[in-house]
């Protein structure tokens, strides 16, 4: 556990986000996510969807972190960093503060022991960066597959790590919680991350591994439409043989996965997936 009081202080912010990562993590924990956090000594300093503090009460929490009055163990961002227009961040202001989420992240990230990008938007830019990228959306430390992003390629959090990228759209609740919990015991080193900053315990697998359609793949028995039996790669463009993630080794929502659902993997854990959907 972090800190002298044995608690781990976690601050969760949302940028140019759909909120889906939060919706996913709220599925975690047999007696609910809040109980699970407590069981691991995690103190949620503030979370936009669930905390009591609102308005100036919430701003006081953020300011106390900036002022060094409250220790920040984990800083998590859900959603991309919208830098536009013209690097002002005005496409995504933190309400009531007259400051953009972009500026808040630049100030808060150096205060944190670890910085976690929750979801492919915060990691690489994600869906808001699709097409013409109207808001100049980037990830915290990547712009698509290129290092850089809002915090820059050289950023390291207080304990010397780059941004940890829990990619996925939305990520499995387990990917997020296991990363958070591993960080509470400081069990993550740079060598535990792949070249795109993803935890290897997820990224060392492919979505293809464990796919219930693997026999169809082996025998090139291909489905022609999404609802058919058969491998989804040849005619439907399934990306599961290239996409990292243990998607088909876990159960999603009690037993599903994209390929079990009858549709092709779109490699949502990969930088730039939104450009070639």
């Amino acid at each position, binding site marked *: 556990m972090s800190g002298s009081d044995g608690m781990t202080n976690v601050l969760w912010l949302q940028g140019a986000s759909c909120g889906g990562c939060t919706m996913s993590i*709220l599925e975690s924990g047999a007696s609910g996510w809040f109980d699970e956090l407590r069981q691991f000594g995690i103190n949620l300093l503030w979370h936009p969807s669930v905390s009591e503090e609102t308005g100036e009460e919430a701003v006081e929490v953020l300011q106390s972190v900036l002022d060094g009055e409250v220790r920040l163990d984990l800083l998590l961002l859900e959603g991309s960093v919208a830098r536009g227009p013209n690097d002002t961040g005005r496409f995504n202001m933190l*309400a009531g*503060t007259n400051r953009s989420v972009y500026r808040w992240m630049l100030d808060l990230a150096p205060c944190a022991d670890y910085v976690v990008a929750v979801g492919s938007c915060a990691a690489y830019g994600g869906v808001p960066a699709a097409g013409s990228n109207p808001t100049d959306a980037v990830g915290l430390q990547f712009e698509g597959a290129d290092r850089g992003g809002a915090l820059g390629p050289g950023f390291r959090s207080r304990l010397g790590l780059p941004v940890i990228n829990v990619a996925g759209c939305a990520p499995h609740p387990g990917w997020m919680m296991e990363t958070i919990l591993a960080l509470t015991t400081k069990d993550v080193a740079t060598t535990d991350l792949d070249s795109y900053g993803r935890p290897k315990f997820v990224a060392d697998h492919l979505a293809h591994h464990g796919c219930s359609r693997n026999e169809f793949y082996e025998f090139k028995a291909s489905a022609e439409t999404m609802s058919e039996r058969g491998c989804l790669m040849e005619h439907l463009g399934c990306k599961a043989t290239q996409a990292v993630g243990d998607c088909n080794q876990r159960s999603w929502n*009690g037993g599903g996965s994209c390929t*079990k659902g009858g*549709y092709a993997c779109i490699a949502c854990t990969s930088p730039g997936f939104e450009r070639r959907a």
Partner: protein
Amino acid sequence: MTRITIGPFNRVEGDLEVRLDVEGGRVMRAEVTAPLYRGFEQILEGRPVLDALVLAPRICGICSVSQSVSAATALRHAMAIEAAPNGLLATNIAHAAENAADHLTHFYIFFMPDFAREAYAPHAWHEAARERFAATRGSASRDALPARARLLETMGIIAGKWPHSLAFQPGGTTRAIDLGSRVRLLSIIAAFRSFLETIVFADTLENVLALTTADELDAWRDGRGGDFAHFLRIADSLSLTDLGRGTGLLMSYGAYEGVDGTLFPRGLFGPSAMIEPLPVKQISEDVSHAWMRDLSTDPAQSSTIPDPDKAEAYSWCKAPRLSGQPIEVGAIARQTVAGQPLITDLVTRNGTNVRSRVVARLIETARLALAMEQWTRALRLSEPFCNASREAPDGSHVGLVEAARGSLGHWMAVRNGKLERYQIIAPTTWNFSPRDSSDVGGPLEQALVGTDVGDAGPRSVAIQHIVRSFDPCMVCTAH
């Protein structure tokens, strides 16, 4: 006159800024700002038509299925195909599960925690409210979050995962449900019903839905356990019926399409207290107070181009209007238009308000639990779930659905197999719209006027209740 700014406004989906002009402790004027713009309509332009099914759901993590169904419906019209009847049923089951899960999330995670605030410590009911509903600490979340997760297991069966699925196609759904899967669905729905009957209502769904008047609801509440009655006692102690009154115009696009029409009908509830046909062609979007260029007021003809330095503008949200009027949408509008007896009685007596909006959501949740069971039993397991898609010829089409928070529309123009234009009007675009060119505010802006904030200023709990009673989804609002 004092100006108060409230933000970040949390326990809503996304972020929100509310500015109030206060005189003598009373709100004289309100401005509501959607502080996030991502540009989905710009992103979708020029993409192959089927990309709408990948990108549009990602507007929103809490009503992703609604966004999928809206896009798939517009594409179905564009392709001039029919959906497989099983596909409509499976879509309805998943869509109802999402909407019911959203109602639970709103009640337990977003709305009720405000009654645990210290500001209410003098009230006799405060200690029990704090124990049950305090944000992240209350005992209710240990019941509600696992029940929500179990309900969302319908998605593992029908949609692969949630949020953000590609299972919802123009011709139906991609996963054929077999006998084992049907039984698993019935088991999940039975567990949901059990949660509602023991934890939420402390009564059978049939008894709850047999309540037809405000007086019957009051009599039912007395001495009853469960979180709904708990809310009703607090609401009556605080006179929440008098708080956040709506403007009176309510609409529904109609919800849960079947072979023989929709479960909840399409219509408009107006000052005559009659249900009238909905003039969909009279929907327009005004950008006089939005940081957007003025291109066309017709969503079928318009595009979205930001204008961040526009004078007079204060939100990324456009102002949708029906025949020039702001409209309130949501479960209360849907159930009023559907003629649900209890909600109709509440709205006829006291309009929409903080209390009746919450009641409508929970009554609708009870109706959805029963409907999900019927749809699941109606699946014909030997028949297809998805008809093939076709090329979409050039043309303009619209997909109108009801998300948890109200009416959601996708207007798309197809040209050469690509999306030439794409316009989205989401529920909270309606409810939290800025002013229009006649200086008429949106439903929330009007509902806030006249609220007594006393000496609390930006910490007024009344403002929190009014805003959250609409269950805003700010990520959808400007998208």
